[in-house]
């Protein structure tokens, strides 16, 4: 499964998240729940690298990140 924003890479998947929509605190909180995710920066985006072939993992990450971003935004 590969879409414009969830890209299949060698060894895993890559998602780019806009920093204005996904606060850094939310991404940090998410990384604590899944330490194997590699977080980087690419311009105005966070880049999250998921290793493995499980296509559901990046999708489930989107659920968590939406929840965390909602919570961190309302603070």
């Amino acid at each position, binding site marked *: 499964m*590969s*879409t414009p*924003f969830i890209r299949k890479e060698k060894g895993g998947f890559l*998602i780019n998240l806009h920093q204005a*929509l996904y606060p850094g605190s939310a991404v940090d909180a998410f990384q604590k729940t899944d330490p194997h995710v590699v977080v980087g920066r690419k311009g105005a985006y966070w880049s999250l690298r998921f290793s493995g072939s499980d296509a559901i993992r990046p999708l489930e990450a*989107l*659920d968590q990140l939406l929840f965390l971003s909602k919570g961190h935004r309302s603070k």
Partner: protein
Amino acid sequence: MKSKFVKADGWVKVVVQTKVYALQAVYSAGYVMMDKAYFYLDMDSKDKVAVWLKPKGKADLDQLAMDFCQELLNYAHYFASLKVNAESMKLLLQRALFSAAPSLVKEAEEKEIQDLIKELEMEEEKENKKPAKKGKK
């Protein structure tokens, strides 16, 4: 009639104007539909957020997008009402709390008096610390 929503690889895109719908409404609408779809948010342009939805299970993409729009309107209305009614709600809660415990009123008044006394004392100290002006001959 042709669908107005852009679709790609099982995802459907809803573009939201941030001048019309606050970002908090977008998050809330997405959160309430989390059992039905995965959500991905991106900046479409300066004032527009692209919300991509992927159904969790079999669902019509257009219907999913329309449902999201409904929830968006619902939360936009909710947050607008919250803002308008905030002051009234605060007063109602205060009255409810004070009527349940009248001693709280006395405590609040005593605290206010103490704060005023402290303020006066601090002002007095500042005045005393100022050097006295030399008198003219």
